[in-house]
């Protein structure tokens, strides 16, 4: 498949997947051909009335042959599993990157927010040779973001965040699309994935209309929704301080721990789901008050609080 004009592979990861695909196809192809050749040879040699010998098989043969190919198949398959699982595990490590793009899927479009706050619809611009992390959520049904050129996809779920990360290497314009059936115009949920040289990207990004970046927008919302009334450091209400919250292990009221990731914080805002140990459950929930985009901004602000602290402690 390498060099297949419709499937450019534009990252090291994609090339590695292609190699795996080709090797596995060759392996399974060999197994298939083995079966087909045997069937054809037997069909000709042992056609009814042919002179070939039908002498009885020795008794031991049946069992030994059977055990032989069972074990051989088992080990072949286990080997393939081991090989693929190794690749899966190494792909799990998320790169440390501050280049985060927020994606909100809704019937039937992709809303994209660049790290500097620039917004685009049905297009994702990224700089080449940079680790990029996509933080994705859905406004309505389940969608799935598919980047064929990078050989990756991930479902985009309502009510939680999923992530994709990659490092695209070859500049160019490719496609991305929705692969989880999402209703009438599912087939139109398709956009351009543009990889630019870092210089071009910087130029493009400067040319976008000026907007606040997400964290600053979030800081404004933090005050206007009244969050700061309790969560600001000087507040008299007994509410958790949000500095350094993101990414930490939080002890829960009912026992147990949870990692304060995007989904956790989102659930706290909208559903008031988890009560951290040592705090009274007094926070109101904001379901239907705060919309997806505002949650995204608030998240960016809360994350920035942790980044500040890390910076300060260093």
């Amino acid at each position, binding site marked *: 498949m390498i060099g297949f004009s419709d499937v450019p592979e534009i990252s090291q990861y994609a090339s590695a997947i292609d190699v795996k695909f080709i090797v596995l196809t060759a392996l399974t192809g060999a197994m298939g051909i083995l079966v087909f050749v045997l069937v054809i040879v037997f069909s000709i040699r042992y056609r009814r009335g042919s002179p070939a010998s039908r002498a009885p098989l020795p008794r031991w043969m049946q069992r030994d042959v059977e055990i032989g190919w069972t074990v051989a198949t088992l080990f072949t398959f286990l080997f393939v599993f081991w090989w693929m699982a190794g690749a899966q595990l190494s792909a799990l490590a998320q790169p440390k990157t501050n280049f985060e793009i927020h994606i909100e899927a809704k019937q039937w479009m992709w809303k994209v927010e660049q790290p500097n706050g620039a917004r685009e619809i049905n297009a994702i611009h990224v700089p080449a040779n940079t680790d990029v992390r996509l933080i994705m959520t859905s406004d309505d049904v389940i969608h799935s973001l598919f980047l064929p050129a990078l050989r990756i996809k991930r479902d985009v779920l309502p009510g939680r965040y999923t992530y994709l990360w990659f490092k695209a290497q070859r500049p160019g314009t490719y496609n991305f699309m929705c692969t989880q059936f999402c209703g009438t115009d599912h087939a139109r949920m398709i956009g351009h994935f543009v990889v630019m040289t870092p210089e071009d990207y910087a130029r493009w990004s400067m040319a976008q209309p000026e907007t606040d970046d997400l964290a600053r927008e979030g800081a404004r919302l933090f005050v206007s929704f009244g969050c700061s009334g309790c969560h600001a450091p000087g507040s008299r209400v007994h509410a958790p301080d949000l500095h350094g919250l993101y990414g930490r292990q939080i002890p829960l*009221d*009912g026992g147990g721990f949870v990692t304060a990731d995007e989904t956790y914080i989102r659930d706290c805002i909208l*559903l*008031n*789901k*988890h009560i951290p140990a040592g705090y009274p*459950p007094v926070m109101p*929930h904001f*379901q239907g008050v705060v919309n997806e985009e505002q949650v995204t901004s608030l998240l960016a602000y809360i994350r920035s609080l942790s980044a500040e602290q890390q910076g300060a402690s260093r």
Partner: protein
Amino acid sequence: MSDSATILREPWPNIERQRYGAAFGIWIFLVTEMLFFGALFLNYAVNRSLHPEAFRIASHETDIVYGTANTLILLTSSLVMTLAERVAAANWRRLALTCLIVTASLGLAFLVVKGFEYSDDLSKGLLPGPNFALEPPSTQLFWGLYWIMTVVHAIHLTVGIGLVVWLSVLIARRVVPLGTTASEVISLYWHFVDVIWLTVYALIYLPGVA
């Protein structure tokens, strides 16, 4: 349980095997029923572990009095059902019929109590939807499962009552003799519905008083 109690049907070679086959069949069916409810209980388990706080708040609103009363009623009905079986084996016709009728009546009593409970729940605004009374939103998950579990169980119980009444009518009119295969099958089903209720009771009512 005499052999003459049942008509031999195709394709069975003899009565004994036919009776054994019917019991075997209903046991297989009950296995499928367990998986049917199992999917529902799994749903409860997952949501409770995701929303422990909401489930704690929500389960406080269930009424343990109704729940316990219904548990007692249903357990008694199962006892009477078993009595009916035993008495039929001894060929005491009138007593067996009485037991069956008591069983069906206890089943009906359960539904009546359930009806009172439902009307209480409705007046307290515990039907999930825009006017739901509790906070936070995920308490609705508990009450959604409450309604689905109890309604599905009540449908099963209604079927059971129908079967018991049908059986007692047939016996009273001497269409079928005492201790038929059908009565064994129906009693197994009845006990099963009872066991399901015990699980529902533990999941719905008991957490509220814990």
